[in-house]
């Protein structure tokens, strides 16, 4: 009887500890969200989305150039990173095998673990220095380098999950491997691959470090991709460390918009991954 009591007491304590741990995971998220919402919500106006930052001293202004700049950078990075990541995954799963595959996999994992500031430095050396100037292009390359391993590995996992019987069904009808890959295998894995793509986009949308010495950022509309371009995270960073109250408020608003963007992407990913089953 005594033993049973001790056991149920232990059970109670441990359950409580685990419950507390769960709550502890949620608290930081809640704090961040509430705090950013409180600070940022009042500064969000139509102006925030439609106008560029005003010169210091003037009140008002927005982050329109940063929002568009982030969009441009994400689109360019995706244009570079997605084909490489997805084609790489196709090669590994459908055509590869052998030693090269494990080398590529290992390289992707290492690349994924490299601090993003270093990725920025690489893009700086490879593009900014030879082209003699900061540019949207350099920023996009830095972000693409972050995207590639994420897309490669998630797409690889998803392609592996496609049952072999489907590939065989197609091949046995005399459909060449490349058509089978695109029209049967990739199509079956599409939702999973899309999830990986969204995760990669969410990741790069918030990256600041790789843009510091590549895209650099500016306070106006960029006209060329070979010139510096504004981006949300860069603008938040610059405004937050500035001494002006008005810019601080814009930084909070920017943070809120960015967090909402991530939140939307997370919801979309959940939607895609649930659809599959």
């Amino acid at each position, binding site marked *: 009887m005594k033993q049973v009591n001790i056991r149920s007491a232990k059970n109670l304590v441990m359950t409580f500890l685990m419950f507390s741990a769960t709550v502890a995971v949620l608290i930081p998220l809640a704090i961040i969200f509430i705090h950013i919402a409180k600070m940022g919500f009042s500064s969000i106006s139509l102006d925030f989305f439609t106008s560029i930052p005003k010169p210091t001293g003037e009140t008002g202004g927005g982050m329109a150039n940063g929002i568009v700049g982030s969009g441009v950078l994400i689109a360019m990075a995706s244009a570079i990173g997605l084909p490489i990541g997805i084609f790489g995954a196709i090669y590994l799963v459908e055509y590869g095998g052998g030693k090269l595959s494990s080398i590529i996999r290992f390289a992707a994992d290492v690349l994924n673990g490299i601090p993003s500031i270093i990725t920025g430095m690489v893009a700086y050396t490879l593009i900014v220095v030879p082209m003699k100037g900061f540019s949207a292009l350099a920023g996009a390359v830095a972000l693409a380098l972050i995207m590639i391993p994420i897309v490669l590995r998630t797409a690889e996992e998803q392609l592996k999950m496609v049952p072999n019987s489907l590939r*065989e*069904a197609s*091949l*046995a*009808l*005399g459909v060449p491997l490349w058509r089978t890959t695109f*029209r*049967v295998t990739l199509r079956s894995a599409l939702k999973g691959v899309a999830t990986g793509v969204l995760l990669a986009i969410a990741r790069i949308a918030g990256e600041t470090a790789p843009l510091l010495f590549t895209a650099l950022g500016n306070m106006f509309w960029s006209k060329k991709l070979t010139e510096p371009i504004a981006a949300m995270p860069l603008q938040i960073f610059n405004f937050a460390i500035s001494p002006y109250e008005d810019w601080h408020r814009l930084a909070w608003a920017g943070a809120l918009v960015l967090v909402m963007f991530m939140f939307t992407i997370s919801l979309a990913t959940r939607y895609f991954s649930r659809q599959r089953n």
Partner: protein
Amino acid sequence: MGIKLKLEGVNVFFGNNRAVKDVNIDFHANMVTAIIGPSGCGKSTVLRSINRMHDMVPSARVTGKILLDQTDIYEKNADPVSIRRRIGMVFQKPNPFPAMSIYDNVIAGYKLNGRANRQESDEIVEGSLKRVALWDEVKDRLKKSAMELSGGQQQRLCIARTIAVRPEVILMDEPCSALDPIATAKIEELINELKEQYTVAIVTHNMQQAARVSDYTAFLYLGELIEFDRTGKIFTNPEKKHTEDYITGRFG
């Protein structure tokens, strides 16, 4: 009746493991040839070598000759894609394309190759489904998902999909092992009709099935061909003691 397909000294290796050893089988045109033997004897491996499915497995290697109308399908410049168009395959588990409708599944061989025209497609789909006696069951729901069909219907759909591309040889890898007896009977009846037009090779672990549907039977054991003869002979008066033991259920 000529010999449509001829296996000459075929070996299949997976890495260093020799799964099929010096197998010789003649597949007569417009006849059904059954390959029987206990699990793991290499019967599916033999079948899959006939439409070069082993190409997809990096460690697999096929040696010897497989002659389709006297041309070796493993010749250096033989094209596996066009070979698979001439030698279709039906698999153990029905494998319709889950994202496609019944209609699209039948026409998949054309559609996936990007050469399907509307009117021709309608004819091919109707003809193929009628051929496998599925038309009356599905004609009102051709646009519905193929996954709504029962297992037996799915397997007949897969056969329709295979004959839609007009192959010359049809390989069947235990096509009834996932089906109930009624669905099995329907497929067997279908096999009997198919041989009017096609050369059929069927792998089965069900000896009664081999006896019922085939004209010739090959008995494989541990990767070796033990005996190959007319089905009647194999099941009533086999040459080898080994075959007799297997057929009478003394092992396997």
